[in-house]
């Protein structure tokens, strides 16, 4: 019987789960783990702040579909992970966070660098473990990966006291991962699916509403087949971007606060919403009582708690999106055979008209660099084939509006939590997971300064991401709200000339390009894409450009503010 240390057991278990990369930061209570990591072939990316380890693991998970792993020490190391964990939780992203903890005998004594991290993150995780017996260690790790990646995915944290990391354990200990209380429903209820198919067949004005769940489940292809067969227009949430090609005539893009006007109007006019893997967040629905007044709802989701949480649902179907859509298409095909389906050409013509009447637009003739122009150029010059990460705020909305997403896992954005500073570390994680892809962080000058230390991570590990900085000298989204709703009192939102971003990236060993004229935009993007290094392009965009259209907070989505 050969014995290994707890730390070696952690590595062994991670290997068994197929982990080949982890993002982290060492500290006193994970030294044994880092010592074991030193001998292993798991690639460890040393970040410069633990929050970014969690974000990078998150970006890695979103780009690859695999579970991301991050590591931090006890106390402040662990608490620094919290924002990243909460972010992953809101967007249902599978990550496993491993934290060191003080010795078992010290727990509860306010020891140096002690924090009750399982207590702190319980509200923002799918599950947590505090390992108090080394025999539980391999069980906890195995269960953590299972829980994180199945059902509705989410973050799981495993807190491991340092003395467990050094204790010896039988290398071949038998691991029983029986989870009595955890059985996610995969297959949808067949009767409900049949009812749904019939309901859809009878609908004259249906829309499909596709969310992040479609991407997580890998249901994008079957969703497209179904939408095209049934001739139903598709609206997405921000998280659902990429689940249906935005170049397709049936695509209505994203709905909601900064969605397309035609998507919002289609919601308002439709008679049936087939919602898949969405949670009807307030940024989508606007004023709930006026959302889609004429529509009945079929709601497909793997999490029963999402069904009926925000809006009334006629036909709930709990289960995996891909499995259910496959069954639903089969049932719907029977309706087609029996000629029970409604003709929808009138509705499709109406939707087409809405698209023509209310396109997303900006002042294309302006001599200033419009942020939307930069995003459009990025789309053109990458052929729409890049992985786009975003920060949060105006940059995020422009990146969502003016780049056309055609494949799943090509937009990586903090949807639920809205975490500024997510994009840079997420792009690092995405590039590590997909080195074959061009990975771009469309950033704002506010967000990027929350995490700019991560340029060091990118440069030193040769993770050649491209940061396209839409620099307007403002915390732009808050400034926009102040302009619209707070009488232009720009309290603490002007950050003009606070930093020379070209020098900053150069200081880290990357390449910086500054663009102050519209005619330089295209060349700068081309150059950035061709340089084999981390590149930041500092676009000095029109300072007070706003994101349009916009639904005022608390207003109905049928009522959008538009640029004049």
């Amino acid at each position: 019987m050969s014995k290994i240390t707890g730390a070696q057991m952690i590595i062994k278990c991670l290997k068994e789960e197929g982990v080949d990369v982890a993002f982290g930061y060492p500290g006193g209570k994970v030294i044994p783990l880092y010592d074991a990591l030193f001998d292993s072939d798991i690639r460890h990316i040393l970040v410069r702040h633990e929050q970014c380890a969690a974000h990078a693991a998150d970006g890695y998970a979103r780009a690859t579909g695999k579970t991301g792993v991050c590591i931090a020490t006890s106390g402040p190391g662990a608490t620094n992970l919290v924002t990243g964990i909460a972010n992953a939780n809101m967007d249902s992203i599978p990550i496993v966070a491993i934290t060191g903890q003080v010795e078992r005998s010290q727990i509860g004594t306010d020891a140096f660098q002690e924090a009750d991290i399982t207590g702190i993150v319980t509200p923002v995780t799918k599950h947590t473990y505090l390992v108090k017996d080394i025999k539980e260690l391999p069980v906890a790790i195995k269960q953590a990966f299972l829980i994180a990646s199945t059902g509705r995915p989410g973050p799981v944290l495993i807190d491991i006291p340092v003395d467990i990391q050094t204790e010896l354990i039988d290398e071949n200990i038998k691991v029983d991962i029986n989870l009595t209380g955890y059985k996610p429903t995969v297959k949808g209820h067949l009767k409900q699916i049949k009812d749904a198919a019939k309901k859809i067949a009878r609908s004259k004005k249906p829309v499909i509403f596709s969310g992040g769940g479609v991407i997580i489940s890998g249901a994008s292809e079957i969703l497209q087949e179904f939408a095209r067969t049934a001739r139903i227009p598709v609206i997405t949430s921000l998280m659902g971007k990429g689940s249906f090609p935005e170049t397709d005539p049936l695509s209505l893009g994203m709905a909601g606060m900064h969605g397309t006007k035609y998507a919002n109007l289609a919601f308002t006019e439709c008679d049936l919403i087939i919602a898949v893997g969405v949670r009807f967040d307030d940024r989508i629905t606007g004023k709930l009582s006026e959302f889609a007044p004429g529509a009945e709802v079929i709601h497909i989701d793997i999490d029963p708690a999402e069904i009926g949480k925000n809006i009334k649902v006629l036909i709930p179907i709990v289960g995996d999106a891909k499995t259910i859509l496959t069954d639903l298409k089969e049932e719907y095909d029977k309706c087609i055979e029996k000629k029970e389906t409604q003709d929808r050409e009138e509705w499709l013509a109406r939707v087409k008209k809405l698209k023509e009447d209310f396109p997303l637009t900006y002042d294309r003739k302006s001599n200033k660099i419009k942020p939307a122009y930069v995003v459009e150029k990025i789309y053109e010059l990458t052929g729409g084939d890049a992985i786009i990460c975003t920060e949060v705020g105006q940059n995020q909305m422009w990146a969502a509006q003016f780049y056309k997403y055609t494949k799943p896992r090509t937009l990586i954005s903090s949807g639920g939590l809205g975490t500024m500073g997510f994009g840079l570390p997420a792009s690092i994680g995405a590039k590590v997971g997909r080195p074959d892809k061009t990975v771009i962080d469309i950033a704002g000058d506010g967000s990027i300064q929350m995490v700019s230390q991560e340029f060091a991570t990118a440069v030193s590990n040769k993770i050649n991401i491209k940061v396209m900085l839409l620099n307007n000298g403002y915390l732009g989204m808050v400034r926009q709200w102040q302009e619209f709703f707070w009488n232009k009192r720009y309290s603490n939102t002007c950050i003009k000339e606070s930093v020379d971003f070209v020098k900053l990236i150069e200081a880290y060993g990357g390449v910086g390009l500054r663009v102050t004229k519209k005619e330089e935009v295209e060349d700068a993007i081309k150059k950035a894409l061709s340089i084999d290094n981390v590149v930041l392009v500092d676009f000095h965009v029109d300072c007070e450009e706003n994101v349009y259209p916009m639904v005022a907070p608390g207003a109905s989505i049928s009522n959008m503010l538009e640029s004049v």
Partner: protein
Amino acid sequence: MNHIISVLVENKAGVLAKISGLFSRRGYNIESLAVGPTDDERISRITLVVDADERSVEQIIKQLYKLINVIKIQKLEPSNIVERELVLIKVNADSKTRGEIVEIVNVFRANIVDVAKKTLIIEITGSSQKVKALQDLLRPFGILELVRTGKIACTRGSKY
């Protein structure tokens, strides 16, 4: 409206905190809570009384199910259960009032479990209404302390 929810959970450290935390962060109030191991010591039963409307209770149950350590949840229908709560009441009682209190206690089939010069401790089990009725009758004597276990309940018949 009050609802009784019976939750079977894995008997592990931190599980109760996960459940009570869920209630506070989703904005629901717990009226009472009773916890203890079942016949199988690996499993505990938590009996919760919550004050919420029908829709909120649905949502509470769905959210509870998402907790990994939760095994089974039952919403108990008041018409088809036996419910009990155990309450200890310390009440003022001197030689003049003791007799009267003992009479009341007997009517309620409650027990006197401690007698001192100036106080009695009364133990009563039963429904909330019964406990409240006794409480009302004892109040004029001066209730010094009242301790309750929280409600526990079991469905009637062979169903479980």
